């Protein structure tokens, strides 16, 4: 167990190192001189030179990379070329927003999807099960931004039940915070719920064919009880996989929903920074997103170990 953890951690760090190098190189190819972008159109050559010296963009790439990495290790993303603001607090803010949005949506999705998926599997021959499977299939096919746009049109604009978007920090006003989250979480969560329902259904269907479930029934459990006691945890492994994959995809995929609901998340910041050619910001955001994805993958790996004793090394 400890060794597995250690090797997971080692892999994690190596992945991170290579990934950051990749990000750095990739973004150096980006067109547009950051100095010109930052200073605007009529800046004098001296001003540009001064700016470059100040921000270190006149240094060699290797030096720039090392400086950047040095900052990363200290949790310092540097200063935005465009806004001249410290990126670290800004990104920290945005990460928080995205994590809340994505996390909450996933929780909601799981709360809906697990029971529905199990139901759809157990009743896979009944009309209700078939209907559930069909609904989830359609749900997967609907783009979440369409759901978002429709939710706004109906519940915010027409009925006025919820705000059409925006973000209020939970500490500032918990009630507003929650009210504003309702629609985006539904938009993001409902499509996720459809995806996860499909996976839960097929995982449970597969588990229902397993011998040990028959054993459990032979012990005197009814079908349902056998499934609950013995099946669900086993079905957990593929579900954890898909939850990990979806979480990783949502971190960036939520940008569309952030746009629809005017939520200042990390993805929106990325798109804005790309538009502003805020090189350092883009670099930092991509690094953070990649870090989060890697962390999710690591957690998924650990979750397997917790769920499945076969993956644990003998002590």
């Amino acid at each position: 167990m400890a060794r597995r953890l250690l090797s997971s951690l080692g892999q994690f760090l190596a992945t991170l190192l290579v990934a950051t190098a990749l990000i750095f190189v990739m973004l150096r190819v980006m067109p547009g001189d950051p100095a010109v972008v930052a200073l605007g159109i009529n800046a004098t050559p001296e001003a540009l030179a001064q700016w470059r010296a100040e921000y270190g963009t006149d240094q060699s790439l290797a030096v720039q990379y090392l400086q950047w990495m040095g900052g990363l290790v200290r949790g310092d993303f540097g200063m935005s070329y465009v806004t001249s603001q410290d990126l670290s607090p800004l990104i920290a803010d945005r990460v928080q927003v995205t994590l809340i949005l994505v996390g909450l949506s996933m929780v909601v999705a799981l709360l809906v999807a697990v029971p529905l998926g199990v139901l759809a599997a157990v009743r896979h021959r009944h009309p209700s099960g078939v209907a559930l499977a069909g609904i989830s299939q359609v749900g997967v096919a609907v783009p979440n931004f369409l759901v978002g746009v429709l939710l706004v049109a109906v519940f915010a604009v027409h009925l006025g039940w919820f705000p059409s978007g925006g973000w209020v920090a939970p500490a500032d006003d918990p009630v507003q915070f929650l009210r504003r989250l309702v629609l985006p979480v539904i938009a993001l969560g409902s499509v996720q719920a459809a995806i996860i329902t499909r996976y839960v259904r097929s995982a449970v269907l597969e588990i229902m064919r397993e011998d040990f479930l028959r054993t459990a029934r032979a012990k005197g459990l009814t079908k349902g009880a056998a499934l609950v006691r013995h099946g669900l945890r086993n079905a957990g492994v593929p579900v954890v996989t898909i939850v990990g994959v979806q979480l990783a995809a949502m971190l960036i995929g939520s940008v569309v929903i952030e746009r629809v609901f005017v939520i200042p998340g990390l993805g929106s910041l990325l798109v804005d920074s790309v538009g502003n050619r805020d090189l350092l910001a883009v670099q930092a955001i991509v690094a953070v997103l990649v870090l989060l994805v890697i962390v999710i993958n690591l957690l998924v790996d650990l979750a397997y170990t917790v769920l499945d004793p076969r993956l644990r090394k003998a002590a």
Partner: protein
Amino acid sequence: AGSSSGGSDAPSDAVVIGLTGEPVNLDFTTTSGAAIPQVVMNNVYEGLVTIDQEGELQPQLAESWAVSEDGTVYDFALHDGVTFSDGEDFTAADAVFSIERVQSDAWLNGTKSKMDVVESVEAVSDTELRVTLSRPSNAWLFDMGTYVGAMFSETGVDDLATKPIGTGPYTVESFVSGDRITLAGRDDYWGEEPDITDVTLRYFADAVASTNALRSGDVDMVYNMQAPDLMGQFESDEAFQVIEGTSNGEILLSMNNTVAPFDDVRVRQAVMYAIDRRAVIDAAWAGYGTEIGAMVAPTDPYYEDLTDLYPYDPEKARELLAEAGAENISITFDVPTRPYATAVSEIVVSQLAEVGIDASIQSSEFPAVWLDKVFTQADYQMSVILAVEARDVLATFNNPDYYIGYDNSKIADQVIAADSGTPEEYVSGMKEVVRTITEDAASDVLFLFPNLVVAKAELGGIAANAVTESLVLSGLTWTD
């Protein structure tokens, strides 16, 4: 910062305004773009003079001023008892500092050239300021009413990007990038204190989101609304008022005069004939907008209706193209990623196709890519942009190094003569200049951009005419 939920239950001294196009920071001395002065001018910063809703010069920090006979010496009498938001007194010394700062290296914004005519500035006393110009200029005092003329505190320029300090009625309370800026009214404002003391400017990445927020009561006013097709829905709704203000912004179909095929005046003229500007306004901007024919807003003193110069005439366009040997040409069309630009571009492409110009759209992210590629490097053939600055016809065409690349040899002397002449000579001279530019089809001004404002019916005092970049907040008030 988060309590500004707006809506009917909002306190009567608060207002939430929805905007699109967020400033990246608040320092217009180093960063270009209209978004910054929109927030801070007249609200946080003030100038010696200001420009009112009708486009007229009005005193602001200067009580009055006198101009010498030869038009080169301006004597300003400044208000007494004006303080900056950091508590410092505003004196003539600050004015000297501010004007000289524009000329120094600290000011990086390109508009600093507007201060080039200033030869010297001196503080005669705490409330007396003398500015000497190198030559008479009709334009200079007007420019002093824009953000070039903003008055800074000598001790308050350390962190312009996030903490602007001015003499205006508001201070910036918070700036949540990607979301909102909040302004708070000052208790110690020297002038009349505004009714609304709690202003939240919320920024929306797209126009529909901002109107949705208005409908759902999250914002009280959407200023410079970018989804004109939604106007109809608001017009028919009692709860809202819809104002079509004027602006100084022209939608300019820029043609690069230095590269083929637009280095040929006939091709440029063909484009002018090929485009049905009324149809462009109708399709791209739901009919809101005014044909003006040249890059001069009707609020400018030297405005002249030139819309008849190039009527919609595709036949003529084809003839001109044939004459220029430019039949069935292909061009690239760099379109900045702004709603008006994408909307305009689609119909322009379609109309150009009618006369045998195959324009392929290339999207340029705005501002960064567009500024870099089109504006700075002039690496483009055709583009479209909303030119928002006031009285910018000369900035655009009287400079062969500008991205338009218009050959200004014909107008350069006329311009100096007009600027240095009497106000009457100024007006007639400028009309002449503008006519020349238009006849040369330097670029096509598609229409004057409307400043569409939608607000709750009870909100009064909306400064709907965007004569300068500034959005004046101090007049706002709830009317019931």
